[in-house]
């Protein structure tokens, strides 16, 4: 198996489009997004159910990709996270078909 990176971006729902743009422009070939249903941050808990405007919850974006694409996206992601709520983390993973990412 081959070493790649796993980018995990926990970000507020309404900023997902911006994050998508950034990653797509950096050449990320794919990502998958999950919808969180609860969380804790800034001292208070939130729940998705009961948010009438459906805009206060967080989503989790997972992208398996090569390091160079993360490097390319990093500056914009940094700015995004200055403006919108979110947490970015990157870890090492092994994949089967390295040329896909």
């Amino acid at each position, binding site marked *: 198996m081959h070493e790649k990176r796993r980018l995990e971006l926990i970000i507020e729902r309404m900023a997902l489009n911006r994050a998508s743009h950034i990653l797509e422009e950096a050449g990320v070939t794919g990502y998958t997004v999950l919808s969180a249903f609860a969380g804790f941050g800034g001292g208070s808990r939130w729940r998705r159910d009961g948010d*009438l405007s459906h805009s206060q919850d967080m989503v989790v974006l997972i992208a398996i990709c090569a390091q160079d694409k993360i490097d390319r996206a990093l500056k914009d992601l940094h700015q995004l996270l200055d403006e*919108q709520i979110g947490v970015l983390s990157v870890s090492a993973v092994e994949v089967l078909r390295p040329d896909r990412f």
Partner: protein
Amino acid sequence: MALDLAISTLLSPVVLFFVLGLAAALARSEMAIPEAFAKGIAIYLMMAIGLKGGVEMSKSGLGPDVLAVMAAGVALSFVLPIIAYVVLKATTRLNSTDAAAAAAHYGSISIVTFVAATQAVDLAGFESSGYLVAVAALMETPAIITALIIAGRGASKSASGAARPKGELFREVALNASVVVLVGALIIGWIAGPEKAAPLNPFFVAPLQGVLCLFLLDMGLAAGRGLRNGWRLMQPATVGFGIYMPLISAGAAALVCLALPISVGNAALLITLAASASYIAVPAAMRLALPKARPAIYLTLSLGVTFPFNLTFGIPLYIALAQWVAG
């Protein structure tokens, strides 16, 4: 009579279900209406309200009077956020972004408040027209534009937006679900007319009041959770704003009504629209466009303070005001 109406409203099932939700949330019950179900119900409500308005419009048509009221609604939605912003900056310590975001909510509208007002107007013996639904739809978004301009002035040099294409932002705001479904259903009701829309009544007309109860239970839960999280951020002056701002808006709309060829019932609805504050479309738009503004403030204000105020005391007042300025 206004008092009668107020008491009758206070004890109506719809209001009581809001209170139930509020109480459950404040007592920290874990109960919740699932997001997917609540979203589905919200879409249903938009369809039902839009269809009703459209069918009524198909009977009366679009005269110059109607266009005048529509223009007045749009103008109010553009102008009210300016007033709200000035008042907020003068009376509270909110920063410019928070003030602009809150102001946007007060220029826009609450469709549930509108429905409740329609029913109260009806109960009070006045008639209202279907085109007011179109006015409601038209008033949803202009306030957002005003707020963005205000925030742009205030926070001029923030480099925000680097990665955010303006066109996409505009599309997301203008084509949000509320507006699309409301306007779409309105046009469909208009085209279909009463006869072709009749088979839809058992789904979109008869159960409406019951569905509202379910929705208001959810709104109560949201308001209660919002209050629990948000009250620490709320100065008394900010809470006060949530009560007198609707009155200011109502006053402004009443003045406009003086100049309009408008019936008492329609005036009451236009005033209510002006006085109501958004808690669905605008909060979402603010996360897109003014992410630095704090939802805990604007949501607590619009959903936790202004909405219940309008639902109980506001609407009877606005009807009284309408009798004074119109007809």
